[in-house]
């Protein structure tokens, strides 16, 4: 059992060096693309559309339900501790904006977009398309990765903000139905705790996730072993490592942003 953990951590430790190399390559190519004005604008927009629209439905639905759960949970706890639940909207909204909004959106993006991206690149690799690109002296990273990377980054930020909006609406409706709050009441008491800096914190989290996600997905896509087994493993590793990194990054950002 110890060797399993040892091997696992070793594998994780060997990654950062390669992932760091991947990240620098991305920055270098992005700068070159922007510099030489050959930025693949149309392709990035196509990717943004497919990433954004494709995952919007699932994310809004999930965040909406999560906010319903939050409101119920907090009313349960508030009654237990403070014996009155006037602060429920405030607490649930704050936790949503600071924490669950970005994290749940990111985790959904990791599984839908992360796995999809890793699988797509892995499939192209085992059907020799990546080698074909390199032979035509087209840098696969430049053509495949940079547009998708930017698209995922923008989509993550946009979807997080939109989903929080949806969540607040969801929270307000459940509060009205279950706890007898009027909409007006809910909205003005909502912002007692959360203030503008929380929104900034949320955007920072979303863009951190939005960058880590394509980084890990593309890394596993390019590293895929031959055969259909390689594709499955690439997608799985993208989902697994993507989600772990989201949780870890969330902790780091939360710690830095809020406790300091």
């Amino acid at each position: 059992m110890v060797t399993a953990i040892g091997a696992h951590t070793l594998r994780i430790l060997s990654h950062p060096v390669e992932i760091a190399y991947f990240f620098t390559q991305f920055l270098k190519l992005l700068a070159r693309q922007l510099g030489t004005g050959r930025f693949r604008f149309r392709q990035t927009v196509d990717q943004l559309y497919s990433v954004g629209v494709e995952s919007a439905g699932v994310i809004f639905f999930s965040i909406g339900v999560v906010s319903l759960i939050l409101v119920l949970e907090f009313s349960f706890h508030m009654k237990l501790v403070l014996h009155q639940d006037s602060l429920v909207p405030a607490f649930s909204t704050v936790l949503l904006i600071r924490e669950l909004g970005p994290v749940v959106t990111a985790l959904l993006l990791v599984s839908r977009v992360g796995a999809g991206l890793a699988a797509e690149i892995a499939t192209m690799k085992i059907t020799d398309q990546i080698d074909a690109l390199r032979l035509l002296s087209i840098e696969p990273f430049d053509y495949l990765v940079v547009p998708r990377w930017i698209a995922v980054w923008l989509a993550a930020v946009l979807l997080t903000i939109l989903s929080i909006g949806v969540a607040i609406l969801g929270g307000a409706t459940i509060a009205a139905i279950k706890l007898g709050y009027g909409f007006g009441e809910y909205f003005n008491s909502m912002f007692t705790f959360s203030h503008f800096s929380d929104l900034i914190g949320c955007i920072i989290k979303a863009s951190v996730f939005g960058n880590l996600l394509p980084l890990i997905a593309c890394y596993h896509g390019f590293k895929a072993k031959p055969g259909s087994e390689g594709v499955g493993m690439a997608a799985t590793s993208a989902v697994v490592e993507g989600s772990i990194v989201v949780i870890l990054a969330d902790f780091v950002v939360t710690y830095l942003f809020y406790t300091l």
Partner: protein
Amino acid sequence: MADKSVPILEARKVAFRFEGAPRPLFSGIEYALEQGDSVGMLGPTGAGKSVLLKVLAGLFMPTSGAVYFRGVSLKKMKRSQWKAFRRALGMTFQKDGLFDSLSCGDNLKFPLFEVEGLSGKEADSRVEAALESVDLRGQKDLRVYEMSGGMQKRLGLARALLFKPQVLLYDEPTAGLDPITSRNILELLSRQQQGEIQPTVLMVSSQPHQIESLTSGAAFLNDAKLDPPKSWAKAKAEKHTALAQFLSGSLEGPLTAELGDQP
């Protein structure tokens, strides 16, 4: 013109081992492809022929040793030299490597735009001419999955020839095709070699009879070692060697043991 003496593509003491594999796929490979040569590379299924071809094409980094293009090691190449190396190379892949998200015509138009910045009417005429040369006239709008095995091989060939390469590398050009489609592909390959300048060709295959007419001789990769290329006459004259058994396809000989065969 490049001077004749330096081989166009050369491997010196090249070895390759997959990550986590107990022993190297092949090692100590000495091989030189001269300008204008047309050579085959034979070997049992799974001997690593395709991997060696990809190492020569600079797609795989060798575990040890180095590959030289016109005397310059791939490891020490600057970006511009690397681009020139790529332009000089044309390669078809065993699994074709066609861009399955694009149509048949776009598989050619895309590289034309990316590499030479061609677009519009000029690109269309280049695409039409390329499809014409591989008997795919008028198939521009077909999707890749709508094309038969033979048609996909021909499109792969058209793409490999798009930038008039000096060296052509074919990886199992007739793998998985029935004899009739294979013969069409082989005819197409020989037509490419009738052109004015004699392109240098290295053809990997496990079917010796099919590539005999297209190549002057063949190297033999077996048991992690490479027999240097020899003419078909000399190869056939061999007795009691793995190559002799490979060419005759008989049951007696060292290759059978590799298949774990104890009748």
